[in-house]
């Protein structure tokens, strides 16, 4: 029997949406106030969905301690209270929440074997969220 297990996490970070591929005016037009030079911050919510067979002995798809450990070591310790633009993942990529969501999927993919990472959802604010299914 397949089911999915999900868990939500929080981290806080700053970012600036800016690309050297565009002019100053083009950056302003594309990113608006998210392009302000000194960046700004968010409390990000990361929702991780892991799918697999429910183990008949434990009743679990995956033990939440396994998910907690992977998210803490691979994601939260890396990004919490940092400036995302300075992370190597974003040297040449704009740290939009789309790109952040895909990056977090890549960082967690394969961490829950035999269960499988199905979806990473990142909420940038209460009204914006992004999902990546790999």
């Amino acid at each position, binding site marked *: *029997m*397949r*089911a*999915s*297990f*999900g*868990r*939500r*996490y929080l981290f806080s970070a700053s970012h600036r949406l800016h690309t050297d591929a565009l002019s100053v005016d083009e950056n302003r037009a594309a990113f608006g106030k998210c392009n302000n030079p000194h960046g700004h911050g968010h409390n990000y919510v990361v929702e991780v*969905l892991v799918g697999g067979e*429910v183990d008949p*002995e*434990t*009743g*679990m*798809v995956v*033990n*939440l*301690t396994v998910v907690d450990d992977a998210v803490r070591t691979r994601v939260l310790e890396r990004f919490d209270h940092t400036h995302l633009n300075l992370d190597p993942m974003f040297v040449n990529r704009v740290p939009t929440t789309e790109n952040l969501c895909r990056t977090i999927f890549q960082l967690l993919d394969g961490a829950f074997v035999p269960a499988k990472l199905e979806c990473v959802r990142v909420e940038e604010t209460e009204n914006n969220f992004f999902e990546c299914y790999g």
Partner: protein
Amino acid sequence: MIFLTRRATFSASHYYWNDGWTAEKNEQVFGRCSNRNGHGHNYTLEITVAGEPDPVTGFVVDLKWLKDVIEQEVLASWDHRHLNLEVPEFAKAIPTTENIAIAAWKRLDGPISRAAGARLNRVRVYETPEIFAEYRGQA
């Protein structure tokens, strides 16, 4: 295809325990959830139904009807109960969030699928605001 979701809440107690294991192994795998005195949660169910809106009413299903189905099929048996001790599905299966999602699906799938034009698409169960499981049927 439109997906319509209704939330419902219930409160219940449970604990995690596998009778085939030693007490030490239960404590090791399940941590504080293995305390045999049990503990409780405010659970939130999200029941998603898929279908086409009826051309006359504009409804995929009548939300009042869906509320009543959830109430009769699930909440009446689970709300303010001890899941391990009072709910038949968990006489043997451990009432993990995963198994609760599967059990809710089994209770709701028949009544919802018998309603014209709609089928159960997903059951999501929140044990806390941070922990949830979902079941989408046997793929």
